[in-house]
């Protein structure tokens, strides 16, 4: 039991555990829509684009969330507007601009002379350094973001599954898209302190992708994703404490291990069950093909 209780004798570890549990739950929940909407690339771009904000707040002695939130909001709005226009190839534009933002952050930091000392903790997060105040802010933002997502779950689901119907039925599709991007952006920003800009995407994408392998129902997927993300965060933090490894990266690798486990052993989508079913001549997806169903040559 001391493996579990020893770390908790330190107050900074207690705070880190609470922080990582909140972040895990939030990323697991919001990440489901990142995965279902195919927003992984945009999420990665957002995480990089907020870096100048992180650096500027750091230099001016603010909480990094202030600058990151400002840049995250601007970027989310910009992505949404970009998605409306057919003129630019959207992902190239995002790639160009956000890499430039990231570079800008690094340049500002190097100019201020903090390059060697602080780059690591800014890029990879510093979960062990979170203050009581940080935990409180994270908690409040997490409740607000999760609350909005769950309140509009039905609309976000329809929009993700069938945007044409959502528009035909008169939903404010653009406003909902902007809102979803803002929720993703806020999620990324509050998680930066835990795993940093580079690895945050893993926390947003890996748990939902794992959950999707385990179930075909959205509600269960969301619940499983939250559980997997929280479990990965907490156990990753324990492993990093005992093995003396970097916390954020260890958390990501624990989540990846869970994903590989699900990929191999998931009841329906797993490689092992697929192999078993092929060997034994039946398949989980029992297709109800009617006789004569086929492509009409007309």
């Amino acid at each position: 039991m001391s493996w579990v209780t020893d770390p908790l004798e330190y107050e900074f570890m207690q705070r880190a555990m609470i922080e990582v549990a909140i972040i895990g739950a939030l990323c697991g929940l919001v990440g489901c829509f990142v995965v279902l909407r195919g927003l992984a690339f945009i999420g990665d771009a957002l995480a990089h684009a907020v870096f100048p904000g992180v650096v500027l707040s750091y230099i001016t002695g603010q909480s990094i969330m202030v600058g990151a939130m400002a840049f995250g909001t601007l970027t989310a709005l910009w992505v949404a507007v970009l998605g409306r226009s057919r003129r630019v190839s959207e992902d190239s534009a995002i790639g160009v601009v956000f890499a430039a933002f990231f570079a800008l952050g690094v340049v500002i930091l190097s100019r201020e002379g903090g390059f060697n000392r602080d780059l690591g903790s800014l890029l990879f997060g510093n979960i062990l350094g979170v203050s009581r105040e940080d935990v409180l802010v994270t908690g409040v933002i997490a409740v607000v973001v999760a609350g909005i997502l769950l309140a509009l779950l039905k609309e976000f689901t329809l929009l993700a599954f069938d945007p044409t119907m959502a528009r035909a039925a008169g939903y404010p599709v653009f406003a909902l898209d902007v809102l979803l991007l803002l929720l993703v952006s806020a999620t990324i920003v509050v998680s930066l302190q835990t795993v940093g800009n580079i690895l945050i995407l893993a926390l947003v994408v890996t748990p939902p992708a794992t959950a999707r392998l385990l179930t075909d129902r959205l509600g269960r997927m969301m619940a499983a994703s939250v559980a997997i993300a929280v479990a990965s965060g907490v156990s990753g933090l324990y492993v990093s404490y005992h093995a003396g490894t970097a916390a954020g990266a260890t958390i990501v690798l624990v989540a990846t291990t869970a994903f590989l486990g699900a990929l191999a052993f998931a009841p329906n989508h797993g490689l092992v069950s697929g192999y078993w079913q092929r060997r034994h001549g039946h398949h989980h997806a029992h297709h109800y093909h009617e006789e004569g169903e086929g492509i009409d040559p007309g």
Partner: protein
Amino acid sequence: MRVAYDANVALAGVDVRVEAGSVVGVIGPNGSGKSTLLKTIAGVLRASRGEILLGGRPIREEAARIAFVPQREEVNWDFPVTARDVVLMGRYRSAGWFRWPGRDDRQLAEGALEAVGLGGLGHRHISQFSGGQQQRIFMARAMVQEPALVLLDEPFTGVDVQNRAIFQERIQAFARAGIAVLVATHDLDEVSSTTTHVLCLNRTMTAFGPTATTFTPETLKRTFGGQLAIFEERV
């Protein structure tokens, strides 16, 4: 009405009045604007000129009464929802913001699934149905919406005889209920057997009228131009 993508006018000169309870076949060669017309009525595309009214009011104000049955390929069939979940999406608007469909809505969904021959299969994941059955799930979704206008985008593509019969029956049921139906199709056999009116497009409206008098070799020649030879023997 006129729809343009940037400077390219995709469709212009469509001026029609569709009565409640009529079934309008929208025909024309590939790229003639069939999908453009449907998507403009559905509000996905915006007409740069002209207006679209439903029951005398601007159609965007009546959006809740429009049901859209998309082409199968437009939807991600890996999405984690069941057939029942998809049908219930037809009740989202009437449930309103922040509220989920209730017991009555679920009963309605179950009845609609039965009407399209999928009773008792609502708990299955959508990938576990065949292509024709997936189209029928969308048809059930349109039914529970209690619409005034149903838009069907190429519903007869790649479906077998049994599914075709079910679609025809549902389309007739819509018409009997006083619902206007617009069917974009390149299946000309279907036009003569299923529709009351025909709307011919080739980037502009080439003809519109009752199927019996408008669906003629001359109209088709005007609409399809050189491609007529393929179709002539069918008419």
